[in-house]
């Protein structure tokens, strides 16, 4: 062990530490300043589709984090060898392979979860965020920052998904993660679940409100578009 740790200070000048300021920024930027959904406006379609309830939204987020992180890592490792003319195809093959692996493993070992997710897992392949990060980041950066970038974007996507899903499930069904939150007496007194929340347009409204709120606390974004 001593032989492994000893040379570290020597190379420190040439090699940046794993969690340098720059790498932290790579990881943190997509959560707020450069959020894939609210700032780049990518991945909107799945944000509308899977946010009716919190649980599928959470698991979808985990799936996207996994796929984004590892496809970024793999493409970054291959980045010097990929022929530019077929790079999109290569990216798609990597993403599709990872998604299929997730799907197959879920089916074999977490059958209940996979039943809930079947259609969502497949949707990750078409998620613009994953491929967008491969094009914009992994092709031009080293593996470790690419991996962090994938995690950051996956989490940034997941935050929005979960926030939207919390609102939609709470006001649409009166539950959170399937547990009743709005008490029965409220219904007895005439409270009614909001049917609009069950429909995809509700997600657009909530994302719109989120963007409004985000831009009023984060002045950096005000002149972005």
């Amino acid at each position, binding site marked *: 062990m001593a032989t492994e740790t000893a040379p570290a200070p020597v190379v420190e000048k040439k090699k940046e530490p794993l969690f340098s300021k720059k790498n932290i920024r790579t990881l943190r930027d997509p959560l707020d300043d450069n959020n894939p959904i609210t700032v780049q406006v990518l991945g909107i379609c799945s944000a509308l589709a*899977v946010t*009716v*309830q919190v649980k*599928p939204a959470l698991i979808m987020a985990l799936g996207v984090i996994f796929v984004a992180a590892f496809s970024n890592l793999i493409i970054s490792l291959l980045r010097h*060898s*990929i*022929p*530019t*003319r*077929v790079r999109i*195809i*290569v990216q798609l*093959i*990597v993403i*599709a*392979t990872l998604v*299929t*692996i997730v799907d*197959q*493993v879920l*089916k*074999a*070992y977490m*059958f209940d979860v996979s*039943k*809930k997710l*079947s*259609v969502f897992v497949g949707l990750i392949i078409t998620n613009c965020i994953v491929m967008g990060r491969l094009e914009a980041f992994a092709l031009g950066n080293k593996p470790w920052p690419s991996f962090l970038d994938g995690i950051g974007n996956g989490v940034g996507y997941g935050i929005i998904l979960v926030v939207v899903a919390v609102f*939609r*499930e709470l006001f*649409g*069904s009166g539950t959170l993660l399937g547990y009743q939150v709005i008490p029965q007496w409220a219904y007895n007194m005439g409270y009614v679940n909001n*049917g609009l929340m*069950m*429909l995809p347009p509700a997600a657009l409204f909530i994302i719109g409100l989120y963007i409004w709120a985000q831009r009023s606390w984060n002045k950096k974004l005000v002149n972005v578009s």
Partner: protein
Amino acid sequence: MHSNRYTLMYAAAISVLTAVILAFLSESLKPAQQANIALDKQINILRSVRITDAKPDQVRALFQERVRKVVVNSQGEELAGQDPDAIVLKDEVNKPAAERKLPLYIYTGDDGRKYYIIPTYGVGLWGPIWGYVALEDDFNTVYGATFDHKGETPGLGAEIAEAEFQAQFRGKKIMSESNTFVSVRVVKPTDKTDFGDEHRVDGISGGTITSRGTDAMLKNCIEPYLAYFGKQKQSLTPAGE
């Protein structure tokens, strides 16, 4: 710029590599996946007779001891030498009733009463839906029902897989008082109907097409069994009752 030769080789190599990885993964996970699917089917069948909390081992044991599997036809005859688990319901439901092979699971409860579990299969909005309907030994009253789906919308059509929706089916009748087949109908709460409350179940708001699919599936899948049930009833009740 890479040469054409390199590009082609690279594309071919990465395709073959990922194909090999996925083929290997798929083959090595297949036994586990198939075991899950078979077990899931047994869990669903037992859920229709209100056994909801059995562990996997208990499910297998219950199936071994309590469930008799038969295949019947629409003339009410039992077909010998058929395995109901091998019948592909998807193919059967589209044939004319007279040609169908009808799998039936007969569960014997703790008190010795028999429940007749009918597998059903139909179409929802995005893909197939299926389920199991358990009838009591009067061949009329629904004891329990369970449904599942491939890809209905969560919160909307997918609610057919939820306990609240399925609980509505308990105690409903499939035959009218004049002994004609009505089925259990899934309709909108506001719809006016010419059949009584004992035949109707509230559909899902926002999941109209899935609700209608469930409705059509039940009618299509239960009706062919009536001949068999009629014969069973005759043999169970003494003549002249």
